[in-house]
C-alpha cells in the first residue's frame, strides 16, 4: 500500500466535547432544532448548552476551531451542509 503519512482524520471524540457534538448532531438530524437554530441561533445554542467560545466558533463557521475543541469533523461538515440546505435552499437535482 502507498505510504500515507499524515495523522488520522477521525479521532476519538473527547467526552468534554459531548455537548458540542450533540448540538452538531441535532443540527444534522433534528429538523425542529435546526429550524430553531435558523430562526435564533443564540437561543438554540444556549438550549443545547454550548459555552460562549463554542457558540462563537459555530456562528463563525470556524471548522478548525470546532474540531480543535473536540467536534467530530463529519458532524461539523454535515451540520453545516444541512444548515445551508435549510437557509439557502441549495438547489437539488440540478441535472
Amino acid at each position: 500500500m502507498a505510504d500515507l503519512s499524515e495523522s488520522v482524520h477521525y479521532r476519538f471524540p473527547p467526552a468534554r466535547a459531548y455537548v458540542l457534538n450533540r448540538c452538531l448532531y441535532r443540527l444534522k438530524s433534528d429538523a425542529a432544532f435546526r429550524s430553531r437554530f435558523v430562526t435564533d441561533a443564540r437561543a438554540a445554542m444556549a438550549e443545547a448548552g454550548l459555552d460562549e467560545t463554542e457558540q462563537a466558533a459555530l456562528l463563525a463557521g470556524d471548522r478548525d476551531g470546532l474540531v480543535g475543541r473536540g467536534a467530530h469533523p463529519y458532524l461539523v461538515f454535515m451540520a453545516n451542509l444541512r444548515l445551508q440546505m435549510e437557509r439557502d435552499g441549495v438547489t437539488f437535482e440540478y441535472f
Partner: protein
Amino acid sequence: MLVGAFACAHTPQLLARPATEDRDLVLRVHAAFARVKRRLTELRPDALVVVAGDHVEAFFLNAVPALAVYVGTEAAGSFGPYRYRFPVHEPLARALVEQGIERGFDLFYTQEAPLDYAFFVPLHFAMPEPAVPIVPLHVNVYLPPQPTPRRCYAWGQALAQILSERSERVVLMASGGMSHFPGTDRYASPAFEWDREVLERLQAGRGRELAALSGEELDRAGNVELRTWITVLGAVGEAKAEVYCYEPSWHHGNAIVEWPI
C-alpha cells in the same frame, strides 16, 4: 443461501445531483447502478442484506455499537427532501443476531433507529421491482475506535456460514467508499491511487489481504467505510470482483463492484 454480493458507493451527491457535480460522471455511476438492478432482478433474492456505515444518524455518542443488526418489521429514514421506508426480513434479521451471538459476535440490535442514507442511496437506484425485504447491518466506521478490519472480515465469514444454512436466497451488499474525507482539509483530494490498488487486488481474488489493514491505514486513505466491503469480503472469500465502475469525482472515489458467487 448466498446468491450474490456487491459493493456500492453511496455518496449523497449521486442522489441529490447538486450543481457542484460532474453530470456525465454521475450518470455513468447511475448506469452502473442500473446494471446492479438488472443483476438483482436475475438473482431473484428473497432478502437483501445491506452492510453500511451509519453517518452518526441512528447511533450517536450515547450508544456506539461496533456491529449492529436492525431487527424490525420495517426500517425508515430521511435525508433532506428524501423520505424512504423498506420492509425488513425479520426472520432472517433475527437469525443473524441469534446465530451471530452463538458464533461469538456480541451484536447490538435495534428495533427502532433511523435508517441512514448510506442504506438508502444504493437501494434508491438498485432495488428490484417489486421491492425485496432488506436486513440492515451496521458497522461503526466514523466513531473511533471502530471494529478492526480483521473483525469485520470474521463477521463476514460468520455471515456466510449462517446464510449457507438458510433456505432464503440472499444477496449481500456493502455500501460505502471508496476514498473520501468529509469534514477535513483533504475533502478535495481523495486517495484515488490507493483505491485503484485495492480494486486490482479484489479483481485478482485477493480480498482477504484487506483484513490485514489497520484502522489507521483505512483512515489515512479516506477509506474508513471500506470496513463494510471487508465484511462482505469475509463472506465471498477468494471470489474475483468484477468492477462495474470506478469514477473518481472531485471529492469521492465512486466504485461499484460485484463478486459473482
